[in-house]
């Protein structure tokens, strides 16, 4: 027995690292609070004790001052400001995805995209929670992901891609955005899903706090992957940092991270739980411009305010046939990110020589969209084209934040001329004319410019594409 004890003592003595104990201050993303047990092992193995302060990644990225290390979901926000520390090493990954209650899963359809989620959210059929993107990396990643999918360029977002606000439909389904979305979701019963890191959703499922676990959906049009780099903020602690990184990347530590925190290891040899093997599909590129992020936050912050869009539609006899058919098809095809959304007020003004019909609907659900289609389906076409009189009428209907879309195929031949129309101050409502057929480019462009809107030529593309291009522009 004593022999055994002595042998053990010798073995232990040989294994204990002779490294000095160090205490470092680390700033970490909020969700990394689950790393406690891993950091305790780290201290045992390396002698480095990490005293952690938690903040949302976006908030934390504003300043790392006063910390020795930082461990955030990404260093991309820091890099946009040119403030990323020189040494950074990715320790683990987790994608920002969607957790859905099994009862609500069917509404999204098979293998949904972010566009499908936005579509159902706009209709009021799907309500979700997310983290506050002004504070949290997960929330910001969700916003970037959805906006990149909405732009549909297959490329990183550029400022011009987010000149129009295409997030409102998606954001109409947002039940809450709070610093602790997981806790909030667990407390409530009226929310269908949660946008968060895969790791947070799996941990929630494993916690037993939900009566039925969430189904995890990896949107087909792409996800944003957080890669959790550990960064050295204070260069004087380089030796300890190197030790910490080496240990965290060792197979044993990687295994522990995967098992206890549901994050994916960066060490390929680690055997993973079945749940951490799901194919993530395509990752969306990360924009290289702070301006893009600022704009997305602006759109995010003003979501939910009652908005109005007014369509001024030419129903003169020249529209008969394919042109009117194209117009109806464009309206019927507005879905995904372009759908009219819950809370939005849609006004349709049909005109020829005079205003033929005016109809306003504040969207509450699918039946309201059907009513709008019925207005557009009208076969009541008349002679003459009084473009500026109709536009003047429409602008008087504007309430609050409004945009006007004007579609015409002809020359103004009744009512006031464009000069007379422009002589009167028109306020701040932007007008987006869509030109097709014989309409005058010069006149429409003048009005668009004067109002702060933009002329779109439907000649080069389908009417639907033209409508989509300006959907959401304010």
């Amino acid at each position: 027995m004593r022999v055994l004890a002595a042998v053990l003592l010798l073995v232990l003595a040989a294994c204990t690292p002779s490294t000095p104990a160090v205490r470092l201050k680390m700033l970490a993303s909020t969700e990394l609070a689950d790393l406690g047990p891993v950091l305790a092992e780290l201290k045992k193995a390396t002698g480095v004790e990490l005293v952690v302060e938690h903040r949302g990644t976006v908030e934390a990225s504003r300043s790392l001052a006063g910390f020795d290390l930082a461990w955030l979901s990404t260093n991309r926000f820091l890099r946009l400001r040119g403030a990323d520390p020189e040494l950074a090493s990715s320790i683990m990954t987790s994608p920002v995805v969607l957790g859905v209650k099994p009862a609500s899963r069917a509404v999204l359809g098979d293998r949904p995209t972010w566009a499908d989620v936005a579509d159902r959210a706009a209709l009021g059929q799907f309500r979700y929670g997310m983290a506050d993107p002004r504070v949290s990396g997960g929330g910001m990643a969700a916003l970037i992901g959805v906006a990149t999918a909405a732009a549909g360029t297959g490329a990183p977002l550029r400022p011009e891609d987010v000149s129009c606000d295409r997030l409102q439909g998606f954001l109409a389904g947002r039940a809450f955005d709070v610093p602790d979305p997981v806790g909030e979701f667990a407390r409530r019963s009226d929310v269908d899903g949660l946008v968060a890191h895969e790791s947070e959703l799996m941990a929630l499922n494993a916690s037993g706090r939900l009566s039925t676990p969430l189904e995890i959906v990896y949107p087909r049009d792409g996800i944003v992957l957080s890669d959790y780099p550990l960064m050295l903020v204070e260069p004087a602690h380089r030796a300890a940092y190197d030790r910490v990184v080496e240990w965290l990347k060792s197979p044993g530590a990687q295994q522990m991270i995967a098992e206890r925190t549901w994050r994916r290891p960066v060490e390929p040899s680690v055997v993973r739980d079945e749940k951490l093997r799901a194919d993530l599909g395509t990752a969306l590129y990360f924009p290289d411009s702070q301006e893009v992020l600022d704009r997305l936050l602006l759109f995010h912050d003003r979501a939910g305010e009652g908005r109005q869009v007014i369509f001024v539609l030419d129903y003169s006899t020249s529209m008969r046939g394919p042109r009117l058919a194209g117009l109806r098809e464009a309206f019927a095809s507005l879905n995904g990110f372009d759908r009219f959304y819950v809370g939005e007020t849609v006004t349709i003004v049909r005109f020829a020589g005079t205003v033929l019909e005016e109809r306003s609907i504040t969207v509450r659900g699918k039946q309201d969209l059907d009513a709008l289609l019925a207005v557009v389906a009208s076969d009541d076409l008349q002679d003459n084209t009084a473009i500026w009189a109709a536009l003047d009428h429409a602008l008087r209907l504007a309430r609050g934040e409004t945009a006007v879309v004007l579609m015409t195929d002809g020359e103004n031949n009744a009512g006031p001329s464009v000069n007379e129309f422009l002589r009167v101050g028109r306020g701040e409502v932007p007008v987006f004319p869509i030109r097709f057929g014989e309409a005058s480019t010069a006149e429409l462009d003048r009005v668009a410019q004067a109002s702060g809107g933009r002329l779109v030529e439907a000649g080069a593309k389908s009417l639907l594409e033209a409508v989509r291009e300006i959907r959401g522009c304010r």
Partner: protein
Amino acid sequence: MREPEFKVIDPRRRFLLWFVPPLTVFVTGLVVLLVSGHITGPFRSVTVVRALFASKRDFFQDEQVKRILMARGYQVHVTPVGSRDLAEKPDLDSYHFVFPSGHVANEHVKTRRAGKHVVPYRPFFTPVVLATFREYAEALRKEGVATPHGQGEKPLYYNLDMAKLKGLADVGKRWDELGLTNGNRVIVQSPDPCKAYSGATLVGFFATAFGDEPPQTIDAAEKLALEVKPYVDAQGQAGEDMAPKYFVPEGRTHAVIAVIYEHQYIAYQLRQKSVDTERVLLYPTKQHQSTPELISFTPEGDRIGELMMNDPDLRRRAVELGFHSLSWNGESADDFGTYIAGRGLPEPPAGEAGRVQLPKAELFERMLDVVGDCK
């Protein structure tokens, strides 16, 4: 009646019974550790050598390399850093040697060390490659952009026509238009060209799509850089060292075409039980080889450099880690091909169509600044 018998136990024997077994364990262990190079004996001191590394740090972080060096009395403390950052580090002089990845950084380091101890060693080289996955390489093959190197059913290496790849980018081609379920555009992802040599090499690769002659003047370099810039910018925010992420199961999600070094791929394949035929390499027809220089600042650094050039164990290990070894006269040795063929890996294309002619360091650096908007 017999006298009671006292059994006398020899106290020395008792002590030995207690002491000998653990002593045996200790001595055996010590001998094993000494022989294997994990520790050094009391008769030889260990010299700790501090070094600054770019992507070639994998070499000195390898357990066997550490053991071989330890057996020779050296422990190298590695601090990783991007290759271009390396040359700019304010505390450069505090290291025994540095190991940048490319010629621009090499030149910079030597300039900064002008007048001081500075000795270069070139132990091996490795080509810069574009790493991708089977279905993406095949999609490029169908477009006539890539051609398989070798006849096998599942080639691991493809030659890549940069001009044709540029053509796909010019028309904004997306992978789903080439039959894949990926709505992203056909682009290459690399580390930041301002910071990492492999990122800078991507600039060199795309430059070949605009002509073979490297620019000779600052004006020509800037003009070429502006032409190349959109193809590098297309990826949005650049990443860091792409290799670790390429080899994880989520590799496709991180990047479908990533700029890495060939040795990282070869070393990965040699670690697998059977060859991974999903991960394949694209070699631009005009290849670029990174010949990292171990630049020594001290006698301790010189000693490491000499070991790298002469020590048979270290040189064998370099080949096992995927590097093509170089001899003192700069000739490439043939042990690389022999070794990997013995391990079931075909020999990669050797750059029959020539090398990328990179501009002179100062011109190339200017190009990188323009392409990467380097601060």
